């Protein structure tokens, strides 16, 4: 009872801070300086129609590199932690057989879901979306295959191969930006092209495709590791 009272008192204190923050907040009438710069110069300098994509890939590309690193760290730690102390012979679980509808339906649906994911990250510079939801959609097709056949064994070698190659080519493109164009992860190493076309905005489609593949491979490896844990 004392613990609950202390927790409530702490939350009331934090709530007072939040209320003060909300009372003194007034929304802006015009864009602030940074956003104004991004709004004015995206179409000419970067050539991408989606301003959030331009910020994530070129203007603040180093933050995206850091995020990709954090995801890589999380997925490799999960793989390491869950494989320590694993018994060599897995006991075969007796499972309820999955129905015919789910098996056949998932075999039809999985390539279409992968196609949707590829569409989302290839068109990242024209429509909302980009590499991160595209990668998550690809991972959810793996999830569908796992749900329909829980004993399915994914080849971890292929997933880690895709992940490592994408990460390596992503950093190599960044270094190529220093050599050829001007700064790390600059997108002007390829020609900017016509505004609004699919092949435009320099290296942004290429970079986002690599990010999408890497994120999809990392989420798939997380799911495969978690589903191959033993039954207790």
């Amino acid at each position, binding site marked *: 009872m004392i613990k609950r009272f202390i927790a409530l008192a702490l939350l009331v204190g934090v709530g007072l801070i939040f209320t003060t923050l909300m009372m003194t907040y007034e929304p802006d009438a015009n864009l602030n300086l940074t956003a104004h710069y991004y709004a004015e110069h995206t179409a000419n300098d970067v050539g991408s129609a*989606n301003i*959030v*994509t331009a910020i994530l890939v070129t203007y603040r590309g180093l933050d995206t590199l850091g995020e990709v690193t954090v995801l890589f760290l999380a997925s490799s730690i999960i793989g390491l932690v869950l494989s320590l*102390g694993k018994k060599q012979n897995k006991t075969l679980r007796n499972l309820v057989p999955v129905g015919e509808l789910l098996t056949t339906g998932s075999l039809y649906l999985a390539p279409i879901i992968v196609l949707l994911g590829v569409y*989302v990250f290839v068109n990242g510079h024209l429509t*909302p*979306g*980009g590499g*991160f*939801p595209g990668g*998550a*959609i690809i*991972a*959810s097709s793996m*999830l569908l295959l796992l749900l329909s056949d829980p004993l399915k064994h994914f080849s971890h070698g292929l997933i880690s191969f895709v992940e490592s190659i994408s990460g390596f080519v992503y950093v190599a493109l960044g270094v190529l930006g220093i050599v050829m164009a001007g700064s790390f992860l600059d997108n002007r190493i390829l020609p900017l092209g016509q505004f609004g076309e699919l092949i435009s905005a320099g290296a942004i489609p290429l970079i986002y495709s690599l990010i999408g593949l890497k994120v999809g491979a990392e*989420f798939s490896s*997380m*799911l495969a590791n*978690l*589903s191959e*844990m*033993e*039954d*207790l």
Partner: protein
Amino acid sequence: MSTFMLVMTVVLCIAILVAAIVSIQVKGDKSMPIAILAAGLVSLLASVLFLILASPDVAMTEAAIGGGLSTFLFFFVLARMRSGEQAGHERSGVKHD
């Protein structure tokens, strides 16, 4: 049109708060899957709220990642702990490595 958006925002926010309170406070035998599904519902409604606040990128990402992947991560781990739903439920014979 603007009052319609306002009404929809208020309805969504009330639904988000109710789902969050349900997820924290549900007790009982089958309460763990209910709590996980309520957290997934919070993510899904937050994705619609992001769309009303004019952010389509964030809405897509939250719907795919928060609504789908996070809920399934919880269910995978829950399925491997068959008797761990009630707090303080001990298994017979604790493993020593």
